[in-house]
């Protein structure tokens, strides 16, 4: 389906070039003046020392949400692995010791070297266990193996880093953990 894009013929002003050049010069002059007189308003950040502002919707490194008792919420259903276009999630399930939870995750590996950070895994999660809101955008490790995040890495996060998120606050150490603990648990009639 070829599409022919007709280019607009240049007007006489544009063909003269000098006025267009002036427009360009005006643009760069504005930017240069901002840099000189409003240095602090430059959008560039001094990277390693200054960190960029990461939005909540940014798909950063994964984390696994925790129940009030500290176990990962993940039930090892494999929906994330099924949704993953890069096939970088490896899950093994096992029987849970907790009678209230039948299935728990035994192994949860995400190979971040393979991951494309599309966010489909977090979308697919039926129990809101997998999230990509850590805002951790930098990965630096010595070895390739270190880029594989294991269950321990994924559940190692601090509720204090997510002050606005009520779900995170229900995890141990969070502000809502105590009341969540009371609700958590199935009391047999």
């Amino acid at each position, binding site marked *: 389906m070829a599409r022919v894009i007709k280019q607009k013929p240049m007007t006489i002003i544009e063909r003269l070039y000098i006025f267009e050049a002036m427009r360009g010069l005006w643009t760069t*002059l504005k930017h240069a003046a901002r*840099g000189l007189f409003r240095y602090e308003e*430059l959008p*560039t950040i001094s990277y390693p020392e200054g960190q960029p502002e990461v939005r909540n919707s940014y798909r950063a490194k994964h984390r696994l949400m925790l129940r009030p008792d500290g176990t990962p919420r993940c039930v090892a259903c494999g929906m994330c692995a099924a949704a993953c276009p890069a096939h970088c999630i490896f899950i093994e399930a096992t029987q849970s010791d907790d009678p209230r939870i039948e299935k728990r995750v035994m192994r949860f590996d995400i190979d971040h070297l393979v991951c494309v950070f599309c966010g489909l895994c977090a979308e697919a999660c039926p129990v809101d266990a997998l999230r990509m809101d850590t805002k951790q955008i930098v990965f630096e490790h010595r070895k390739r193996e270190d880029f594989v995040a294991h269950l321990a890495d994924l559940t190692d996060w601090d509720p204090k880093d997510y002050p606005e998120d009520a779900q995170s606050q229900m995890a141990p150490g969070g502000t809502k953990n105590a009341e969540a603990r009371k609700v958590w648990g199935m009391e047999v009639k």
Partner: protein
Amino acid sequence: MDIIESKSWVEWLITIAKFAFCFVPVLYILLLIPMERRGAGFMQDRQGPNRSYIKVPYFGRIRLLGYVQNMCDGTKLFFKEMFAPKGASKFLYYVAPAIPFAIVFLSPCVIPWFGPMVFEWGGKVVTISGSILDSDVGILLLFGFSSLSAYGAVLAGWASKSKYSYLGSLRTSAMTISYEVCQGLSMMGLLVLAGSFSLTDIVSWQEHHVWGIVAQPVAFFCFLIATIAETGRAPFDVAEGEPELVAGYHTEYGAMQFGLFYMGEYSHICISSFLVATLFLGGYSVPFVTTETMQAHMGGSLAILCWVLAFLALAFLHMMHRYSKKLAASRQSNKNVILQEYKLYKLVGWVAALVFIAAGVASWMFYTPEMAHTAAGVNTIGTALGTAAIHLLVLVVKSVMFCWVWIWVRWTLPRFRYDHVMNLGWKIILNIAILNLVVTAVVAKLLGGN
């Protein structure tokens, strides 16, 4: 020994001291390199190079607003190994970079740095020219000097024994020839008006009539474009197109040989901007004020100069303060180091501001007309020196402005194709320049009659 005794020691001192102006382009290199790098950064919303630092007690890591980076780069270039490619003509290969750099020291000789100093010394009225060599054909000399720098490029390209270098030097020579014609012809109108080839005369004509940019706006544009083209900078950098010719005539050069080309290019810009400022922006003349008026109110003039400088220092302090405040509120991890560094800049800024204010007040209050002029109405040496200082400063400001134009144009406009460059030179600018010359000559004849 007549020739020595014909002048007093003060005259000799000033005449010899004027040779220091030969080093102005070299000093300009030190200014232009950071200006280009950080200016380019600002235009692209970057910060520019600002990481290198010197450790200083108390203030910590001093980066001199990014200036240390250029010192580091210079040091690196200086200590790199020099080598010639196999099959190169060794002598010419090593000599070629020196040519454009050597020209740098010749060109400033004919530029009038300040108006002729006229003062009374030892009962005699002494007159000292503003340029080192006050020639009647100063402008021709200047063109001659700056054309010489093309030899450096030609020789370098030829001696390198590299196709890229050779093609690059061919293009350079072709372009230099083309645009020198344009340059010369576009300036002719002004010479017709001024009626002299002497740069000093041209400046004084502008001072007493009108600036060249107003009298000859078309010529100004043509001359500016031709001069930018002659320096071989973007958008006319056809000699060193990266996709086609790698780095043009200096492809095979490294270390300080390359550094010499690099510095030669910047000093060429410097000379060119001095030339444009001199020809079209009234040279050393202060806008709207004649030299005589200024000398009549010497104390006030110096005071205003000092206060302008003090204002600049205060503005710098204000920007520093604003930026420190923002930085202190940010979460940047090294902000305390930077704030400590800024203390030094603020200190320097305050000292400069106070000194300039004080100097302004002093000259305002204590530089009385009695000190400025003798009873006969001739300037004292102090007034003459003060005038020269103001002139020099004004010229520097104007030339720096044009240096900025070079940088500004380079980082804005995309480069032209080679045939476009030639078309522009021979078919457009040359014709406009000739037309401008004819019109100017006719109008000048009709109106002026000289």
